[in-house]
């Protein structure tokens, strides 16, 4: 389990996180939601080990994260940041192979190549293999970065974690659902825990096991989508009116934001 408890982060006098916490369990998908500036990305960076909180604890499989070397962290968790860029003319395949960096080897071995190609295929970008990464569109690059993260956590036998900051932001609706189904499938193996920052209430309701609702650096609510994504709590977090509307032909209701 990758967990943060009672975490405080203060940067330049501004409190970004106040007594925040989250648990990412192997096999589960956690969606982190909240308005802009709620501290979602900060919480992700704390879990990734990039930010060390001023107070509180962060543990990776029971061990304090600060005690785990950064190479060892890289073998056990991958991060897909919100904005991606690739300098120089690396191809898509070479970019995905960078995910194998923490697993050693001074050149791509056949096994690494196989893992990279498999990750490309799962992310639905296999046909871009030979494209130069800097020439991809935002949505294409986002999926390549997802493939790179999948290649990074491809090593069986111990729990791994995937942390994604709005990976669906630049995707069309079909690809949003494709990515969410893929993440469910990754978690479904039971060894990978997924934490994903999302803005789409319905994507979270449909695909997440747990939802963490944040506002102003604090956790407003955590629980299953049914428990958390209620009109009352949505209003408290986002200052909008929402209704839960039955969806004929589907067991899941739809959340409609009415203003």
């Amino acid at each position, binding site marked *: 389990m990758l967990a943060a408890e009672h975490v405080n982060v203060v940067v330049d006098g501004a409190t970004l996180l106040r007594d925040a916490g989250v648990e990412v369990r192997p096999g589960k998908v956690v969606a982190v939601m909240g308005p802009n500036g709620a501290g979602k990305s900060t919480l992700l960076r704390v879990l990734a080990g990039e930010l060390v909180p001023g107070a509180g604890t962060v543990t990776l499989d029971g061990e304090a994260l600060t005690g785990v070397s950064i190479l060892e962290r890289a073998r056990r968790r991958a991060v897909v940041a919100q904005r991606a860029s690739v300098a*120089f003319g690396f191809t898509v395949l070479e970019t995905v192979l*960078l995910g194998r960096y923490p697993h050693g080897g001074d050149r791509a071995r056949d096994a690494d190549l196989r893992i990279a190609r498999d990750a490309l295929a799962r992310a639905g970008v296999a046909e871009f293999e*030979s494209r130069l990464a800097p020439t991809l569109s935002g949505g294409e690059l986002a999926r390549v970065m997802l493939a790179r993260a999948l290649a990074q956590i491809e090593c069986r036998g111990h729990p791994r974690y995937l942390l994604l900051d709005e990976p669906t932001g630049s995707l069309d609706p079909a690809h949003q659902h494709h990515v969410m189904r893929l993440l469910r499938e990754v978690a479904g193996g039971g060894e990978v825990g997924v934490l994903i920052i999302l803005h789409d209430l319905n994507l979270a309701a449909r695909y997440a096991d747990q939802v963490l609702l944040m506002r102003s650096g604090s956790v407003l609510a955590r629980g299953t989508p049914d428990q958390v994504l209620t009109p009352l709590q949505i209003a408290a977090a986002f200052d909008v009116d929402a209704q839960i509307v039955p969806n004929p032909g589907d067991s899941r209701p739809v959340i409609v934001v009415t203003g």
Partner: protein
Amino acid sequence: MTPSRTVRHRLPAVPTLVLLALALAVIVIAACSVGAFPIAAGDTARILLSGLGLASVDGIPSEQQAVLWSIRLPRVVLGVIVGGGLGAAGAAMQALFRNPLADPSLTGVSGGAALAATSVIVTGVLLAPGAAGVLGVATLPLAAFAGGLAVSVVVYRLATRSGHTSIAALLLAGVAMNALAEAGIGMFTFIANDDQLRNLTFWRLGSVAGGTWPMIACVGPAVLIAVIVLVAQALAYDALALGEAEAAYLGVRVERLKALTLVFCALAAGSAVAVSGMVLFVGLVAPHLVRLACGPAHRVVVPGGMLVGAILVVGADMVARTIVAPAELPLGVFTALIGTPFFVALLLRQRTAWNL
């Protein structure tokens, strides 16, 4: 899908590096052979191999051997060291700044090294004659290293905020550092005496003509160590292409990598400046040529940049001293003539991408 968006044919890494090493050997022999006192290329090769105990020099006149060992070879070896150091440093700086426009001369690192070296030439010996006596031939390279390191730290701080490097800020910081270095060098030129002035002028134009074995013994190991350290970071440089935060997520110790790169680039570039003055643009052109041929993987670009840099400097020096013989064109002038259009072409091709 237009062809330019997919990968063009890339030369394989290891055969290309072997080929470049052979090309360097050929151009070293050629550069040792041509000049006012020509030596047959076969004889040059035999004399060089005899130094390793691999050939005999029977039948080769001793004047030829003397010219080779004491005049031509030090100059050519110095060219290899200067070009190799600048090429590898250029490749590593481009990796660090995640941009193909970074180069020891454009970022002001060479300028800072030159200012420090100039101050030693003009005043250092007066202010601390004892220190210069102890350090001897290493005084100038040490000063240049310190000057180059100081500027590279300043430029890095100015150009990079929270892991993101602005290429505009980088180039402008380089402009500022170069202007400062120019002003300082101008001041030292003003107070220099006639002898120092002559030394300064020729040194600033860039030349490997002053190569001597003691000088080589001093900067050779420094550049060699720097190149080995920089080449060893190649895989981490690849990861850095995704950004500093992403490289850290992949397990790269980014702060350590940045410090190593700044220190050893300053060592390589500072050593080159101390012994050859301002040889411009080699650090820009050499890695770029390798990238064009083999793609951006740094396990090729860093050692390849070193080899191409050495080939460029030895070749340019050979042309510079034969084209208007018996006079010599300054090497720095010659590399700037080649490098400037190259730099402008790079700028034009990429200015839309960076909104310059």
